[in-house]
């Protein structure tokens, strides 16, 4: 009777400590007004993208069903005007946010997975394993990411999955370096030495001690990487390597360039996707920086 109670109490203590820490993190984060602003805008954008089917069904993007004139300037009916096919640019913009955000998150996930695993391995193991891993990381650091992504996309064929893979595979090296240095720091601490002395194996040290210690850093880095992944997605779509039938911000800019919207003075088709990219990427950067300063107090006040 008393044992389960004690156990329950122990769990409660740990949970309480976690809750307390979470509240602290949130307070520290919330005290960074730039980060908070970024977060609010991001939540708004993500909610908008998630709920758009309720306001504008996919049929508004079906060119055979639209009735508005082509390249129409902004009006009450179409607040951001229409594209060369007569679709509402506002609807395109919000539908495009879905692809841009999904690709941004998915590519970041791929990149973080590879970066964390390789980074921890490179920091934990020594000798030949480390040397080989480090050279691989160096290789991906010096290879121009955009060019490699373009080559990958043209080899695998255009599509959303291709872009996710191309960005993920080319952008993990920086994370790996970061995770490796954190791994080295953590592993030189006395408690790891104690764990070794008590007979812990590689698996135990990596998963129980190193991983929890690098996770906050990875999280902060993730938020920063989403931003650059969204830019990379826009770039690849702009170069015509995305799925041509799905709408993303980069694909909108490509279509604007291809159809001569700039020469035609149709600013309502060029500006919104460009500004949307800037705003969302800026927000991700702000949130990421704020998170970083929470995790790493030495950054505060700089």
């Amino acid at each position, binding site marked *: 009777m008393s044992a389960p109670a004690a156990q329950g109490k122990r769990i409660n203590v740990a949970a309480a400590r976690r809750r307390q820490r979470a509240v602290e993190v949130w307070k520290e984060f919330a005290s*960074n007004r730039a980060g908070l*602003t970024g977060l609010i805008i991001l939540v708004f954008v993500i909610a908008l993208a998630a709920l758009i089917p309720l306001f504008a069904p996919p049929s508004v993007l079906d*060119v*055979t069903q639209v009735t508005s004139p082509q390249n129409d300037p902004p009006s009450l009916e179409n607040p951001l005007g229409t594209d060369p096919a007569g679709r509402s640019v506002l609807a395109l913009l919000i539908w495009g946010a879905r692809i841009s955000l999904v690709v941004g998150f998915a590519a970041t996930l791929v990149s973080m997975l590879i970066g964390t695993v390789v980074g921890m391995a490179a920091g934990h193991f020594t000798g030949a394993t480390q040397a080989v891993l480090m050279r691989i990381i160096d290789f991906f650091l010096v290879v121009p990411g955009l060019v490699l992504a373009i080559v990958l996309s043209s080899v695998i064929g*255009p599509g959303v999955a291709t872009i996710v893979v191309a960005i993920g595979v080319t952008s993990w090296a920086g994370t790996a370096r970061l995770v490796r240095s954190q791994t080295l720091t953590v592993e030189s601490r006395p408690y790891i030495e104690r764990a070794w002395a008590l007979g812990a194996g590689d698996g135990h040290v990596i998963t129980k001690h190193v991983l929890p210690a690098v996770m906050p850093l990875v999280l902060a880095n993730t938020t920063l990487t989403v931003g650059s992944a969204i830019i990379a997605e826009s770039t690849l779509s702009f170069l015509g390597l995305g799925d041509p*039938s799905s709408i993303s911000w980069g694909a909108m800019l490509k*279509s604007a360039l291809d159809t001569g919207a700039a*020469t035609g003075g149709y600013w309502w088709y060029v500006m919104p996707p460009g500004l949307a990219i800037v705003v969302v990427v800026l927000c991700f950067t702000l949130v990421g920086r704020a998170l970083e300063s929470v995790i790493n107090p030495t950054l505060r006040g700089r």
Partner: protein
Amino acid sequence: MTSTRTSTQTGERKIPLARKIGALLTAAAIGLVPGGLVIPAASATETGTESGTTLKLPLTGDIDSLNPFIAILATSTNILGLQYEGLVGYSAENNEVIPEMAESWETSEDGITWTFTFAEDRVWSDGEPLTANDAAWTFQAIQENDALKQANGSLLENVASVEATDDYTLVLTLNEAQAPNPGSVLPVVPEHVWSEVEDPATFENASDAVGSGPFTVVDYNPTSGVTMKANPNYWQGEAKIDGVTYVPYRNGDAAVQALLTGEIDMINGLTPAQFQALEQEENITTNSGAGRRYQAMNINSGTKDVDGNDMGNGNPALQDVELRKAIVMAIDSNTLLERVLEGLGTPATGEIPAVYPLYHWDTEELPYAYDPEESNRILDEAGYEMGDDGVRLDLEGNPLELRLMGRNSDPTHQQMADFIIPWLAEIGISVTSEMKAPAQVNDDSILGNYDMYFTGWGIGPDPDFQMSINQCSSRPNADGTGATNESNWCSPEFDAIYAAQHTELDQERRSELVVDAQKLIYDAAVNNVLYYADALEAYRSDRFEPFVTQPTEGGVILGQNGPWGIYSATPVSSVDAEGATATTNPAAVILPIVGVLLVGGLVAFFLVKRRRSTADERE
């Protein structure tokens, strides 16, 4: 300009703590924008003063070679068309065969012997006399040397012998009678230059060339473009301008801006949006000329190689002509013309565009015009049952899922796919679009690795070549080498009609046969011609008088069958070079810069321009 500044400033105010980033972005935006504005203006004043005597054109395609035996890309052959002449040419008025290098010609009763008579006083651009021996040397060089057959070898396949019986008479003896004039298209080169060349096949011919056309190449360099000067000895009289220069531009919008600032004098290949924007400009005259190109959606009816073995991975269900007919009837090509081209084109019937009335299939009532109900009825009757998910099953019980291929370099392909996918969904066919690099589309179309794809051919005044590539003998080898087939389709019935028109010397009868041949292709529903797009052009009317178009009524200036458009260039006497710089629309300069800046910078930009350069060179 204002809008850019305001937006970055608001960004700064909203997020005061992100000063670093905000300042960085603002600096980047403001730093780039004036640069974009200043550069074109500066270069306009530089080049503006000397203009009026040289016609400056954008060089947007690739040049493979300036050797007329080797060059096959459209850009190269257009340039060489200014420098060399054929024995006969095509008139600017209506594309009729007219005397060019030869003054007159006669055909024997049986159509086998063609005798061309040369004028006695003609000279090359370097002053050497031009005689029938030059033509004989050119023809014989191609016949004797396989390396020289690349560009025009097929034109001489039916020519048994060539002989200059005297300095001013050339006799061509054919293997069998043919209706198309054997002296058209093929450029004749000066013997006194080319016989001195060690290997004519590798001769670059890229500087100080000698020709008989209105302009000759002074020099060519991939980075600086092509410079041509007027030929003082051109038999129709020296051109009214000193020369023509082709300036490389890798991007359509950049070339449009260059036209606005006066860096170039004429442009073609505009998009509807660019065309409509230029229509508003003072000092610029736009020309929407009836194009000589058809745009089609090809359907893979079962590709076979020249030995009759299956090729490629086309969906076998498409071998049923009823299914292909239903697909054609589900596509509203008039809506495509209205919405994708904004009406800047002509509704299509067969493959020969309306600009060639002699061979155009002129009808108002197409058998398979847009009719989705009838299309659904045909499919029901043919046994394509509707599945639960709204996708029909083919006769073997598999869902009808088709691929639609297009070029990623041509924006209209994706725009058309956006329409065609829902239209075909309406008749229970599921379609996915795949836009590929132009070279990949060429390969896949030859090998039959497609279900449906967008294609288009520029058609010459004589339909013989276009029809010839539908013959059973014009099918590729198993590895894709050898001949090309227009639709990877052939029929003995078509071959018979082709052969009949090829040797028919009576014009009226031949026209009927060519129309019949087009109807056969149409009835097979393998090449659904959607429209004939207009060629959208614009030129600086403050510098040049109106140009000669081909044909005279509603024709094109650039991309003619012959040099007439550029040859007719006449400078406006009082050139107001300063006025040229005033017309720049600042928004038009800023917007692309902002877009590009946001998306990833100039590296990306140059890359896309490189990719575009290979686009749509197919003639």
